C-alpha cells in the first residue's frame, strides 16, 4: 500500500503525512521538552500566528501558546477517537459477524438492537449519557477523568451499531459463499470457520469504515465540546474551539487553527477509508 509512496496522488501523500504526524505527536507528546501546555504567557495574549517570537502559531486570548495547546489537543482528540472506534468496532464486529453467521433469533435481536441504536441521533445519545453519568452536583462536580471516560464510552456506544451493521452485512455476503460450505463439509467447527474464512474476508470492509468512523467520532467530540459537555479546559481540539468561540472577534486564529486540525484529520481518515475501499474493490474484481 505504501509502495512507490512519492508517485501516489497528492491527497494520499498529504493524508499519510498528516496522520503520521498526529499519531507521532499523540504517542510521543510526553517526551517533548515543551512548555507545559496550560502555562499562561504574560507577554503575549491573542496574537495571531507568526506575530510574536517564541509562539509561532500565536497565543490564545487567555495567553496559551497555540502550538503546544494544539499538540496537546491532538493527543486527547486522537485518544478519544481511536479508543472508541477500536473498542466499539471490536464489539460491533463480534456481534455483527456472529449474528450474520448463526442467524435465527439471535440475529433478529441483534439487528433490531442495531437499528434502535441507529435511530437515536449520535449527539443526543452521547448528550444523554454524559448528562446522566458524568454530572456531579454543585459541591462535587464530576472530575475531568470521569468525564473523559464517560465521553469515550458514550462515543463507543455510538460506534457499535455502525460497524456492527457493516460487519453483519459483509458476513451475510461471505458466509453464503461455497467455500464456507466446503469447509463445513470437511468437518470444520463453526468458530474455526469464522476465524479462518469469515474474518479475513470481512476485515478490509470493517477497516475501511473504521477509518470513516474515526472522523465521525472526532467531529462528534468537537460538537459535544461546543455544547459544553466535552472534555473541559481546552484539552482537546473541540475543547479549544469551544473556548475560542467566545474570543472570535479578537483572536480568530483561536477558532480556525483547531478547526483546521479537525478538518485535516477527518479528511485524511476519510481519504484513507476510501483508498482501502477502492483497493478492496480492485481485489474483489480479481477473484
Amino acid at each position, binding site marked *: 500500500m505504501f509502495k512507490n509512496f512519492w508517485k501516489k496522488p497528492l491527497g494520499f501523500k498529504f493524508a499519510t503525512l498528516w496522520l503520521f504526524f498526529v499519531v507521532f505527536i499523540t504517542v510521543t507528546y510526553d517526551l517533548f521538552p515543551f512548555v507545559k501546555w496550560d502555562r499562561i504567557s504574560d507577554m503575549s495574549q491573542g496574537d495571531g500566528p507568526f506575530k510574536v517570537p517564541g509562539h509561532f502559531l500565536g497565543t490564545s486570548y487567555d495567553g496559551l501558546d497555540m502550538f503546544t495547546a494544539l499538540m496537546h489537543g491532538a493527543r486527547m482528540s486522537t485518544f478519544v477517537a481511536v479508543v472508541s472506534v477500536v473498542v466499539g468496532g471490536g464489539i460491533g464486529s463480534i456481534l455483527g459477524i456472529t449474528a450474520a453467521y448463526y442467524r435465527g433469533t439471535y440475529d433478529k435481536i441483534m439487528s433490531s438492537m442495531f437499528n434502535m441504536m441507529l435511530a437515536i441521533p449520535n449527539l443526543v445519545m452521547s448528550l444523554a449519557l454524559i448528562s446522566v453519568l458524568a454530572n456531579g452536583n454543585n459541591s462535587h462536580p464530576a472530575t475531568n477523568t470521569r468525564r473523559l471516560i464517560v465521553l469515550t464510552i458514550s462515543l463507543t456506544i455510538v460506534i457499535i451499531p455502525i460497524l456492527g451493521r457493516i460487519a453483519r452485512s459483509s458476513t451475510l455476503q461471505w458466509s453464503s459463499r461455497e467455500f464456507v460450505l*466446503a*469447509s463445513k463439509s470437511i468437518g470444520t467447527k463453526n468458530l474455526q470457520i469464522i476465524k479462518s474464512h469469515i474474518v479475513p474476508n470481512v476485515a478490509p470492509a470493517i477497516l475501511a469504515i473504521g477509518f470513516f468512523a474515526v472522523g465521525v467520532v472526532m467531529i462528534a467530540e468537537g460538537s459535544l465540546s461546543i455544547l459544553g459537555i466535552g472534555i473541559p479546559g481546552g484539552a482537546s481540539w473541540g475543547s479549544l474551539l469551544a473556548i475560542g468561540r467566545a474570543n472570535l472577534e479578537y483572536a480568530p486564529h483561536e477558532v480556525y487553527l483547531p478547526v483546521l486540525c479537525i478538518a485535516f484529520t477527518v479528511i485524511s481518515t476519510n481519504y484513507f477509508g476510501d483508498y482501502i475501499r477502492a483497493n478492496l474493490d480492485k481485489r474483489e474484481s480479481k477473484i
Partner: protein
Amino acid sequence: MSNVLEVTNLSITFDTPRGNLRAVNDATIALEQGESIGVVGESGSGKTVLSRAIMGLLPGTATRTGSIKYMGKEISDLPEKELRELWGTGMAMIFQDPMTTLNPVRRIGSQLTESLTVRLKLSKKEAHEQAIELLRRVRIPDPEGMMRKFPYQLSGGMRQRIMIAIAVSCKPELLFADEPTTALDVTVQAQVLELLTELRKEFNMAMILVTHDLGVVAGHTDKIAVMYAGDVVEMAATRELFTNMKMPYTEALLKSIPRLETPTGTRLPVIEGRLPDPTKNEPGCPFANRCPYVADKCRAEKPPLKDTGNGHLYRCWFPIGGEK
C-alpha cells in the same frame, strides 16, 4: 460386502412461500464399499438436494423423512454436532464450481492443511508434508510452490484438483462429487474424472457422482440412478442401463448429447417442455407431458417402481423394449 450407505424412502420437502416444494420423493439407494453410483438428471430434478440431504448439509427450511444409514448407523436424525464428526473423515464433498469453493484471501497451503491439523490433529510440519504429498497425488506440478499460491492464480482445473485434494485429505469412506466437472473446460473434464476414479480405487472409497451428463458417468461409475422431478425413475448397473434402457426419459437424455457424426447445421436434439411444478402434486407420471410414447394411463396414474429381476429398476407403464 457391507453397505457403506443405505438410503431408504428418503423424501425432502422445502417449505416455501408458494407451498411445499417436493424436491426428492421416496429415493432408495444403497452403496457398497468402493462402489460408485452416478446420479443423473436435468437441472431441478433433485440430484443436488439428494446428495446434500444424505450429507446433512440442507438449510433449516427443509424437512426430511425416511432413513439414511451410514455404515449401518442411522444418521438422518443426528444433530449437526455429531454429524460434524463424520464430515471429512467419513463423508466428504466436492462442489460444482471450484471458482467459489476456495477462500480467495487464503493461500492454498493453509486451506489444505486446515482439515489435516483440525480433523486429524497432525502437527503443522506433518500436515505440510502430507499436504504436499496430496498435491502430488492429484498431479499438481511443483507442489511446494503451489502451497504458497492464492486461488486467483490458478486455473479452474487446478482449483478443482485442490478441492479434490482437500476432500480426500482425511480419507473419507464416501465421497460426494456434485457436478465436479460442470464448471470446467471439456479438455480438463476427462482428466479430473480420471483422477477421481483413480483416487476412488486407491482409497477404496464409495462415490456418488452427481451430474447432468450421461456421458460423464458412463465410464466412471458402477451404477446409475436417473432422476426426474424428484423421483428416481431408473436405476441399473451402468452396462445394463446403456444396453437395455427402459425409461423414455433416459433415452431422451442420451439422445440430447450432441454427436460428432451428425452433419454441420443439424439442430441439437432437446427434450421439449419443462419439469412439472414441484409445488403441485398432480396425478400421473411427471414425465407424461414430454414423453413421446405417452398414453392415457400415463396421465391418470403414476407408475410404481418396477424391477426387471436383475436389479434394474424403472418407473414406467410402457417401458422401451416392453416389460421384462
